[in-house]
């Protein structure tokens, strides 16, 4: 079986700094891959290169048979990759529903005529969108299910992070990139979030996930495989237990000599 995402020799410079160093990384369908490494090791840069925010200086990325190395952020999204951000990037004055629907852009009819003058048809599409958003919120934020038209600005960070995951999931992507989804959450909150993510994957057999996370308990529990980065280079790869015992990984994390 071919990989869903295959990055080969992906390289990114920022001036003289080598942020990604010939990175090879493959993800299979329905696989959960943990991307770990110390701060500044290139995890978020990898996400930004894959999603078209940064352009790779060398190497290639193939997603689902499509070369996305030089693709725009828009094209990457249309191909079926969506993401969350390390620092929550919701539109605060907009409602929960609006924020989630931004993620569904490719499935919404964007014609001016349809939106302005076919209000009955628009209403039908709106109701379908509402049902889909509601279904996700029922999984991730049941206590907010009746409050979809409240602004996001009034919600605590934990709710916002979960809404961001709903926004990334509503377009039914094939690959979900989660950038520290549990940052700022307590142990129990993190555990509950991971349970929800696993339940979404269980229902959607096509969904693969790459997760950047510092909470090693999470990584151990939910990932099928881990990739460890240090200074933009892959230093280890394999199941969490094997990776955790790797000498180079321990050195990178603990700074032991």
């Amino acid at each position, binding site marked *: 079986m071919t990989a869903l995402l295959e990055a080969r020799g992906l390289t990114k410079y920022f001036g003289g700094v080598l942020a990604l160093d010939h990175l090879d990384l493959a993800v299979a369908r329905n696989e959960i891959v943990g991307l770990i490494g110390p701060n500044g090791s290139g995890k978020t840069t990898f996400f930004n290169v894959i999603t078209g925010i940064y352009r790779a200086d060398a190497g290639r990325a193939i997603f689902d048979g499509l070369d996305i190395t030089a693709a*725009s*952020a*828009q094209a990457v*999204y249309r191909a079926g990759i969506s993401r969350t951000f390390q620092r929550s990037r919701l539109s605060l*004055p*907009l409602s929960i529903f609006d924020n989630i629907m*931004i993620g569904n852009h490719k499935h919404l009819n964007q014609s001016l005529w349809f939106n*302005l003058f076919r209000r009955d048809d628009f209403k039908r599409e709106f109701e379908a969108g509402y049902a889909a958003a509601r279904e996700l919120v029922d999984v991730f934020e049941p206590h907010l299910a009746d409050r979809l038209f409240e602004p996001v600005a009034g919600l605590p960070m934990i709710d916002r992070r979960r809404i961001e995951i709903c926004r990334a999931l509503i377009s039914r992507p094939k690959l979900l990139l989660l950038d520290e989804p549990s940052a700022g959450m307590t142990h129990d909150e993190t555990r509950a979030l991971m349970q929800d993510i696993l339940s979404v994957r269980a229902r959607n057999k096509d969904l693969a996930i790459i997760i950047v996370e510092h909470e090693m308990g999470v990584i151990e529990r939910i990932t099928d495989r881990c990739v460890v980065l240090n200074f933009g280079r892959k230093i280890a790869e394999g199941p969490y237990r094997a990776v955790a015992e790797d000498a180079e990984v321990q050195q990178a994390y603990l700074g032991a000599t």
Partner: protein
Amino acid sequence: MVAADEKRADLRPALAALGAADAYLIALLAVESTAAVLALLIAGVAAVIVAARFGLVGRVARAFAAHEDTLGLFAVAALLVVAAVFHSDHFVLLLLVTVLLYSTAALGLNVQFGYAGVLNFAGASFFGIGAYAAAVLNTFTAVPHLVVLAIGGLASALIGCLLLLPVLRTRGHYAAVVTIAFALLFKTFLEVNDVLGGPQGMPVPGMALLGWSFNDNIEIGGIRLSFYMSYLVASLLLLVAAFIVVRRLERSWIGLNFDALRLDETAASCFGLDIARWQITAFLIGNFIIGLAGALFGMVGGFVAPNNYTFADSLILVSILLLGGIGNPWGLIVATFIVVVVPEKLQGIQEYRFLLYALMVIVVLLFRPQGLLPRPVRHYFPGRKP
């Protein structure tokens, strides 16, 4: 039955507010002496502050949000009442027409700046393009005047589009800088252009529809109406149409796109939004509305001159937006009334009116940064039960 009762109960504060505003407006337009105008203005501000203290303003705003269609009809009726009271007064009717058409233009600006976040500091210039288009077409051609209005809108949209296409792919406020440059150049261009009358400007033949000229006074059953009454009805229809279009736009996926790209371009790109495409769309729609209003305004005034469409006038349009509440069409209309009517009634401050605008904007930004009537969260179908 119960639902109908509830609705009536909800509507009551809004209807009372509309009635009060109507009476107040009539009084303000009727009084002549500066002292009386000042007293009325102070009383008005005090009344609003007191009403806000008792939570009445919030109740009115909620009623308007929930029953916009019904209350919109009442607002139209309220304006017609004012017009009826001053049915033979050229000056007052012209003032009302000005308010209606400036409100329409502000709605266009609102699509650009309020929704999509594209700053346009050349609103008055695009308004002027509509007016000049009307002047040229009405003078030199026999194009039907409704078509002339549409051409005014299209000309404004097209020129705006050509102006912005090269800069829309850049980030930051380059587009705003380009519009400032355009606003300054536009006036100079008109002044040196002899075909368009140079600095003296040119006359605009009035509007005629199906052989009925708008510039004739009307007599119905012995009551003489000012000819501005026809323009008032036309302007009101234009404003209502623009209002409905802008509202529907806001309550659609396109309105959502505009908000998304204004608030976070990077996140919007990651969810497939083509930033330049939606910025251009917003600019085109906004400019079309501004140009339409400008074309009608040209015919109302009967004259166009470069001095009417300066950078300073563009700033007035922007200040209407800031004052009323960015993104709230009702707020814009209220703000236009304030910005247009107050300096006209206080003839003494005419020369200092820019000082007054500046002061109002600063006060609003300091004490109520979201404007007089802040924009509520989007409801695609108000009153829909979840």
